[in-house]
């Protein structure tokens, strides 16, 4: 039962959309025999016919071959159950127009049921991609050619190889050329031509492509020539060393990225709990609110997913911040001087917020899309690539951290909140407007939690349990780092992240988590006040 609110938001969003998005019209194709046959196969109820339709088109020299195949690949073709013809739909919604693929007939969708999407399966998708790759091999963009060679390397046969072989001499782009060379070398290794074998091994020894390594292994197992075997083995050792090095880098990156998630989740708490002393059990729910804000923003601007995240950051800050301020004004301000009781009240608040989200947005997870600029990888080589979304999260984490540091160190607020938390009465006697400071600080911590929610929405569930999943870890990080020290939070989060990732490959995820917890317990014995303890006479009693 999606709430009405969301639906309303969505309608508003649609209106905005119409203003932005250019209306695209589908071009119809002629009813020539080949295409009619293609259509007939696709509307058939026999699944194998789809594959045949693809083959049919692929084998033909039809000029619109690629256009049609991509329509199919992207799921833009629908079968009408009445007339068994194919249609292109702008939207699979009642009242929307449907254009016939062949000829120029169109109708309005009366019932969604009447139109069934024509779907391709994995094998067929591969089939289409291969066809497209073959064409792309002669594209004038090197990136496309590179992708094409990669696609072809998944599964090459004589035909594709000969295409690569033909294209190789003319290829100018070094990367594409290199990959082609690898492909050809792999092929060479499977032949029995001793002359070029050594060169092929040499080529492959420089490549980190898994297929290259596999080919070398196979070759090494199969060959009778001791010299070549030794060469292949040496190449393998070299490759494995490189792989090991890159795996190490990868682990480090994974650790930092897990660490930055922990830091983001904890950093708001480092303020509300660490600096203000409120044991804020609702912190997780403030993160959750940030994530839901992202969801709502995306609902409002479904055509601008890329932008939506950027809009969501300030929006989540404001929404969570306001909720935080409401919590502070409504409950917590009655509890200053009774820090333990904030635990009780905020625990209650967290239950209420969870249930509120369940009532408003349903208990189901909501889907938040990853904008295209955040998806994909920065590929350094075939064994080492960094995922862009995580990279952005790491960067974002540092940005948030330094922004907060600046606020706490460079503004009066930072000083005042520490004064208030150390001695409220005296701070007021010095003219500090403690109520405003509390409100602003709690709002700031909550707003930052909201921002963390935006980041988390990119990698995990956006659902009512989101907060629960992070609250324990957040407290762990803040305390491990040393309460009241936000540098501590940063270092603690990163340390725990990297430690987890270092242990995980050895022990598996479950034991890794247990070991990290045991590590925290033992570490605290050694440093009873965390990584960066508050020192001095006052902290001792």
């Amino acid at each position: 039962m999606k709430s009405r609110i969301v639906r309303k938001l969505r309608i508003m969003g649609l209106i905005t959309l119409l203003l932005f998005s250019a209306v695209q019209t589908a071009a119809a194709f002629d009813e020539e025999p080949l295409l009619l046959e293609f259509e007939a196969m696709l509307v058939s109820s026999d699944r194998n016919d789809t594959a045949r339709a693809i083959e049919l088109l692929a084998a033909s020299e039809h000029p619109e071959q690629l256009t049609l195949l991509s329509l199919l690949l992207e799921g833009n073709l629908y079968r009408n159950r009445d007339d068994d013809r194919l249609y292109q739909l702008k939207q699979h919604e009642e009242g929307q127009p449907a254009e016939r693929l062949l000829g120029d007939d169109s109708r309005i969708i009366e019932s969604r049921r009447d139109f069934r999407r024509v779907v391709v399966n994995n094998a067929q998708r591969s089939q289409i991609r291969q066809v497209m790759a073959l064409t792309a091999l002669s594209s004038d963009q090197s990136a496309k050619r590179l992708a094409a060679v990669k696609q072809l390397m998944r599964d090459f046969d004589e035909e594709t190889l000969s295409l690569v072989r033909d294209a190789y001499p003319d290829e100018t782009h070094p990367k594409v050329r290199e990959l082609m060379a690898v492909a050809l070398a792999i092929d060479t290794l499977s032949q029995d031509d001793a002359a070029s074998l050594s060169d092929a091994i040499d080529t492959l020894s420089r490549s980190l492509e898994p297929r290259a390594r596999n080919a070398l292994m196979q070759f090494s197992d199969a060959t009778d020539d001791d010299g070549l075997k030794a060469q292949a083995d040496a190449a393998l050792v070299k490759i494995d060393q490189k792989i090991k090095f890159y795996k190490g880098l990868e682990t480090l990156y994974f650790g930092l990225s897990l660490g930055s998630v922990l830091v983001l989740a904890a950093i708001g708490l480092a303020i509300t709990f660490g600096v203000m002393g409120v044991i804020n059990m609702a912190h997780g729910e403030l993160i959750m609110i940030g994530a839901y804000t992202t969801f709502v923003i995306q609902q409002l601007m479904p055509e601008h997913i890329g932008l939506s995240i950027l809009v969501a950051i300030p929006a989540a800050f404001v929404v969570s911040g306001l909720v935080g301020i409401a919590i502070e004004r409504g409950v917590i301000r009655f509890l200053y001087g009774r820090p333990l009781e904030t635990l009780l009240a905020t625990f209650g608040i967290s239950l209420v917020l969870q249930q509120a989200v369940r009532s408003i947005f349903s208990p189901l997870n909501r889907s938040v899309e990853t904008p295209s600029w955040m998806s994909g990888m920065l590929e350094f080589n075939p064994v080492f690539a960094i995922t862009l979304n995580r990279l952005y999260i790491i960067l974002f984490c540092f940005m948030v951290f330094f922004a907060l540091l600046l606020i706490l160190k460079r503004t009066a607020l930072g000083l005042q909140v520490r004064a208030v938390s150390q001695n409220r009465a005296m701070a007021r006697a010095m003219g500090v407007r403690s109520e405003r400071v509390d409100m602003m600080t709690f709002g700031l911590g909550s707003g930052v939690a909201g921002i963390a929610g935006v980041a988390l929405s990119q990698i995990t569930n956006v659902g009512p349990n989101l907060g629960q999943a992070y609250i324990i870890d957040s407290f762990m990080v803040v305390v491990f780092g040393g309460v009241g020290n936000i540098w501590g939070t940063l270092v603690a989060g990163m340390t725990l992240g990297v430690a987890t990732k270092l242990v995980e490959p050895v022990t598996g995820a479950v034991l890794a988590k247990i070991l990290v917890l045991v590590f925290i317990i033992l570490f605290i014995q050694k440093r009873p006040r965390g990584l960066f303890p508050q020192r001095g006479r006052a902290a001792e009693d």
Partner: protein
Amino acid sequence: MISIQGLNQFYGESHTLWDIDMQIPEGQCTVLMGRNGVGKTTLLQCIMGHQKVASGSIQLNPVNKDLVKTSVEQRPRLGVGYVPQGRQIFPLLTVEENLQIGLPVLPRGQRKIPDYIFELFPVLADMMHRRGGDLSGGQQQQLAIGRALVVDPKLLILDEPTEGIQPNVVQEIGDIIRKLNREMGLTVLLVEQKLPFARKVGDRFCILDRGRKVAEGAMDGLDDTLIKQYLTV
């Protein structure tokens, strides 16, 4: 400067201050005296707003405000500086930060710690970046006085400011209070147990006993009978 009328205060059930009427004339230094536990600190806390009063009024004069009805954080803005008993330093803030806390009450452009504070208490300059809580007791006391002066007060309230301070500095503090009082026209309300010091800096005295005001007058009027009656155990 301050005129207190019919002030009553309770800690829970226990009636601590009884119908206090008291005047603190502008430009003078009034010393509040009395045995331990008679309610001196409590009275100052009422003036500062740290304790709720049950009845009565506390008029702050040139600005004509009833302090009972104003919030605590207004007081420094109305020109009241406070040196509490037990120093109440912010232990984890540095000395500098302790002093900076009061700056925002000053008009923009004047938000700087005045140099004369470091002239008065050179030790604070030496310890600028040490945590307040790490200072020795006497250093903290000096910091507390310095901190109160930062807000540029018209009325300075001090609760046993010489407690734990080395003798030569006590003399200095006496001189300072007198100077602030006589030369800069600062009104001072001082709680002090030590008679010589009280006599030296005070213009007027006021004695509390078991929550009531029992005597008041010019410092010359503080004679042995009063002392025997109210200040001896």
